[in-house]
């Protein structure tokens, strides 16, 4: 069936509802945030409408640069860990029987129903000295005495990967299931080992999906503010934590808004850069 391009306004009709929703729930709040980011902060009070750059000026410092850099690094690391874990897992999952696949997927979906708070507290118990996993290691003789594994960077990373992994798998799953199985069969017939075929055939064939998944997990991880607080030390707090501090505890909305706008711009910039590089790579 050939699709006609839309002829009249009525043909665009089905788009009105989602476009309206996007306008009301994304464009308007984001516009408000941009406006507030230029407002004048009243110390010891709230803010007054104005057009000043002082909120952005305050952000442009080595201190906040460092926090921003850490947040981006953390999000990239989470994205890479998730994809590296999820890709082989999802491939193996796609080769299981239908029944087992459904069981696995239901299990993964149920992880999504856990809130960030529950994940954070559960991991902090698992990684604690008094009740955590290290007690098991002592039992089986790997450690001499139980140790606290949190707060630490590893704990933050573990918690965030745990939270993002189901999303990663669910995004990769349709693409991998739809992949032509004869590709791998051909590779095997031509004598490549399963691991070699995975890296030389499957991964390149899924390049665009992998890129899109990386970007999605990256953005998802960038917004995390609870897990770094529960599982990390202050130097592991992300920019989102400081934004929350300003908005909720300091009632400094203009500065919080300026930081948030900055974070969104840097994120969009990085995504655009990634897509640009990807496109260049395709042409070559």
């Amino acid at each position: 069936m050939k699709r006609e391009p839309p002829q009249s306004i009525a043909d665009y009709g089905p788009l009105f509802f989602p476009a309206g929703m996007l306008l009301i729930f994304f464009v308007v709040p984001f516009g408000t945030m941009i406006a507030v980011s230029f407002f004048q902060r009243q110390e010891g009070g709230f803010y007054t409408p104005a057009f000043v750059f002082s909120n952005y000026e305050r952000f442009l410092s080595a201190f906040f640069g460092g926090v921003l850099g850490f947040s981006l690094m953390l999000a990239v690391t989470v994205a890479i860990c998730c994809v590296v874990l999820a890709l082989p897992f999802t491939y193996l999952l796609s080769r299981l029987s239908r029944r087992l696949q459904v069981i696995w997927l239901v299990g993964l979906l149920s992880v999504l129903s856990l809130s960030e708070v529950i994940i954070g507290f559960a991991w902090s118990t698992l990684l604690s000295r008094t009740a955590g996993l290290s007690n098991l290691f002592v039992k089986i003789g790997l450690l001499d005495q139980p140790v606290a594994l949190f707060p630490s960077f590893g704990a933050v990373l573990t918690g965030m990967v745990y939270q993002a992994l189901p999303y990663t798998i669910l995004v990769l799953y349709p693409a991998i299931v739809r992949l032509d199985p004869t590709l791998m069969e051909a590779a095997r017939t031509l004598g490549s080992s399963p691991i070699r075929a995975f890296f030389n055939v499957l991964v390149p064939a899924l390049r665009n999906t992998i890129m899109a998944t990386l970007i999605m997990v990256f953005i998802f991880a960038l917004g995390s503010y609870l897990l770094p607080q529960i599982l990390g030390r202050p130097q592991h707090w992300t920019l989102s934590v400081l934004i929350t501090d300003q908005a909720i505890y300091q009632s400094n909305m203009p500065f919080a808004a300026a930081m948030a706008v900055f974070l969104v711009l840097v994120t969009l910039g990085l995504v655009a850069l990634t897509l640009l590089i990807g496109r260049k790579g395709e042409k070559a």
Partner: protein
Amino acid sequence: MDTFLKTGVSRRAVLGAGVMGAAILAMPNILRAQDKSLKVGVYGGYFKDSFDKNIFPEFTKATGIAIESVAEPTGEAWLVQLEQAAKAGAAPADVSMMSQVAMLKGQTTKLWTPLDLAKIPNSKNLIDRFVNKYPDGSVAGIGAVSWYITLVTNTDVYKEAPTSWAVFWDKANADKLGLLALVSNSFLLEVTAKTFFGGTNALDTEEGLLKAFDKLAEVKPNVRLWYRDEAQFEQSLKSGEIPMGQYYHDVTGLAASEGHPVRSTFPKEGGVQDSGCWALSRASKKADEAHIFIDYMSQPAIQATLSRKVGTSPTVKRELLDLSDKEFAAVSSDIEPIIPRYDLYTTKSDWLNQKWTELIVG
């Protein structure tokens, strides 16, 4: 899907449920229609539960005013919500319990309706510092309860109770402390000034503040957890995972009475006394009921009940209370308290916040 549609729910039942649902949704309006009600914001969790159980039913019995209690978050989140709502002419709660810093910030935007002390005769019972005033002398809020932040320890790990805040600086306590994460709720600058620099007056000047910051930086290696959320620390304190820190005297006492191995100590420099005020949002239309409520809450008998049942420290004068020495000691102490320098958190809030964040994050 088919089986779902075939279940025996009749059309009549669906309609009936719809009417029921609509009636339930309309309920708040019915409640609002009777004028005698008041929405009161109190800190959610243990506080709100205690008020709902021990205080509000008695108030309704005495005055005929129904109380709808609203769980408010700690910190300034509630202030931000009240402020935004007031701009839109709405009041999520008529009267709210607000911290001192939030009171001062609300004053700058005239968020609080000035209270008429003539309608609150019991306000004369209060200790002077618990009457919160606008710069022009009108009353912004009336002390609701006060509470102490004290030195808490896990009794399994520390057999002897520590006696001074200076133990936070002891190198033997490396990686053992849980401290509040914000400059404006931990009051650690005041603790540092009182412990090492002779009193909170040392914070009058910028040099004094910087000196306190420098001294406080020495505590950093001892801190395992900087917490915003109380549950985060309380659990770790009970289990001994983080065996020492600063925490609320009332909640720690409650945990100890439930058999957990924790204790709260008033250090010789004093506990930090913080307090909450009843404040009336300018968007509220229930000023009369609010005055009746605040007057009721300022009675010595009610303050004594609060001390016995909720574990808070009274805001009315000691001699008016029928609390025994033992009951008084359970919620307060004769050691002169450290009173936070609330003025700093409004005049220098951004500077303090920036220095503090750089101190703990950097």
